[in-house]
């Protein structure tokens, strides 16, 4: 370090700034601190949503699950309207809600895809906008079986996008037994597939594995049941898990990274269609019961491109688009007579998309209740334990 001797210059004294630097610094600190403190106490408002004005605009931002839209449908929409669609993805409803709640309307997303059961709470917390049905005439194509659900009567905040169920898929090269129930899943995870198992990143789904296997109501809020679930899941199952990923089947199956994956039926189908040896993989609709869920199109609060959003959702409800969707994502999109059209079109692996009636009958829909926070905690602990 070179030490300088004090500089002696012949410059006039007026060249030296007069402000005392300490005063200025102090001023900054005070200003900053007061800003911060007022920020803490202020009312947490939301950014305003743009109103539809008939102009489609150039951009649309969609926040959806991974690989959940047929790319051909997207490019079709882009070509016909000139709107550039940016598709970002999240891995769990918690992530979606966290993003929307944290950004309070400035997330930049227009369309979001929440699962049905979360919608009432999202609406109560002003995360979603009400929908203007007059801008989506293709709603007439929706099958009434899927509209007007208990969590959104009258479809005020959501349009059905896809419904499906949860099960698991396994590699028959590694697991030689025939698996059929959730108990089989747990046993396999602890033995033959230990260290090569993946579960969903969804707290409800993971806890449901234990509850369903023990014939307890999957929506239970009984603290004793949840305690038992935590003890097993964190204490025994967690260390065998290699990944928590809601979309693992789409790439996990072709790459063979896991032997046992809890997966949604459509994702497993996508993975099997991409794999070079699909016969090696088996998807199971587990007994005694499983989740029957529905994902929906919704408009986020603070959306800046509402016209494009309505146009997009409307576009996805045409029969042609719906057919392409079901063939790509592997889920029924709620359009009338879609199953017949898909079967007539010789869709691959239809048994994964349209489970038999007896399977459908034993499914149960998830409900968001007081036990949710506990479930989230259990998942967090599992994730921490798995890495230990």
């Amino acid at each position, binding site marked *: 370090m070179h030490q300088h001797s004090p500089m002696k210059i012949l410059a006039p004294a007026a060249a030296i700034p007069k402000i005392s630097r300490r005063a200025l610094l102090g001023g900054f600190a005070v200003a900053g601190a007061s800003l*911060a403190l007022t*920020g803490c106490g202020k009312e947490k408002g939301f950014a305003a949503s743009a109103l539809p004005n008939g102009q489609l605009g150039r951009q649309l931002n969609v926040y959806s699950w991974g690989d959940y839209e047929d790319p051909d449908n997207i490019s079709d929409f882009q070509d016909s309207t000139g709107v550039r669609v940016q598709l970002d993805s999240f891995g769990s409803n918690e992530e979606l*809600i*966290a993003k929307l709640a944290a950004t309070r309307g400035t997330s930049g997303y227009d369309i979001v895809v929440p699962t049905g059961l979360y919608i009432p709470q999202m609406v109560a917390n002003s995360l979603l906008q009400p929908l203007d049905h007059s801008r989506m005439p293709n709603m007439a194509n929706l099958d009434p079986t899927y509209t007007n659900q208990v969590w959104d009567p009258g479809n005020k905040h959501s349009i059905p996008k896809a419904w499906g169920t949860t099960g698991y898929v396994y590699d028959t090269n590694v697991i030689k037994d025939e698996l059929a129930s959730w108990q089989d899943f747990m046993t396999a995870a602890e033995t033959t597939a230990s260290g090569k198992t*993946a579960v969903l*990143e969804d707290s409800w789904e993971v806890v449901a594995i234990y509850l369903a296997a023990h014939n307890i109501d999957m929506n239970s809020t009984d603290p004793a049941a949840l305690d038992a679930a935590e003890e097993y899941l964190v204490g025994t199952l967690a260390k065998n898990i290699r990944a928590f990923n809601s979309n693992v089947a789409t790439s996990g199956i072709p790459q*063979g990274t896991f032997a046992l994956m809890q997966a949604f039926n459509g994702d497993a189908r996508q993975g099997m269609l991409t794999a070079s040896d699909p016969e090696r993989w088996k998807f199971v609709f587990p007994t005694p019961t499983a989740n029957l869920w529905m994902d929906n199109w919704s408009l986020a609060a603070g959306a800046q491109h509402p016209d494009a959003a309505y146009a997009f959702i409307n576009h996805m409800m045409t029969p042609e688009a719906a057919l392409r969707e079901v063939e790509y994502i592997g889920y029924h999109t709620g359009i009338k007579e879609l199953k017949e059209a898909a079967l007539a079109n010789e869709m691959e692996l239809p048994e994964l998309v349209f489970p038999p009636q007896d399977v459908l009958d034993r499914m149960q829909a998830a409900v968001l209740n007081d036990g949710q926070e506990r479930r989230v905690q259990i998942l967090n602990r599992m994730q921490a*334990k*798995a*890495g230990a």
Partner: protein
Amino acid sequence: MRKISRRGAGVAALSFPSWAYLVFFFIIPVGLVLWYSFGYKPDLFTAHSNATLSLDRYFEAMDPTFLSTFINTLQIAGLGTLICLLIGIPFAYWMAVKVPAKWRGLLVALVLVPFWTNFLVRTLGWQIMLAPEGFVSEALQNIGLIGGPIEILYTRAAVQLGVVYNYLPLMILPLFVSLDRAGVSLREASADLGANRVRTMLQVTLPLAAPGIISGCLLVFIPLMGDYITASVLGGAQGNMVGQLVANQFNSAQNWALGSAMAVMLMVFILLTVAIVGAVYLIVRAILRFNRRVLIEEPAS
């Protein structure tokens, strides 16, 4: 005296924009994190509230399950730094000393190339290589080195490998710079005085390179403790590190208070480790110096 302070005032004025920027966009946000860590999560949908202040979040963060992640991270970071050091020193020595001067610039540039490649992309390269059904796995199986597909991906070993790889250039560069400075003449002098190469290395070169070793270790250890990307790409569930834990609290669990507490704990862990290692180093150095004192006798007058 007056002249010095006047000059000081003129010079300090230049730094005001930096001050303002740092205060506004670094001090305040990080201060907010500290503030949040004393709060709590009121209900499922609200991220945070500071209505009641308490240290409960810290106790929650010290919960055995989370604490094991902290310990895990410390292990990965410590081992990673050590491995980087063990690889880095011989390599930097080779580059600074053994390689002819005209190649040195080129070699430095070659080391900088991975440094300038996107961190995430480099890690993806490893994800491809470590895939159980990838080419490396197939090749090793064909040669017969291993019995089945490699099962490293999504385990702690993969994360360990990944972090060593990603942070190695950060270790090599300061080492190279300080070894380069350490000077040929001193090593020669040591050889002239009869020291063999090992002794020269231990008693001359390494101590002179100490500043480089220290800065290399710091440059590797500190970001490594907070690493988020390598663990996400290569770690799966089992490579869980604190960075992911914190991100998780903000990204899905939406528990800002707990996440902030964990973030503060992370900083504390880092500072503590650095302080402890620093203290140990200073003590060891003092002992060594004491043992190596050479008493120069007074010349007989």
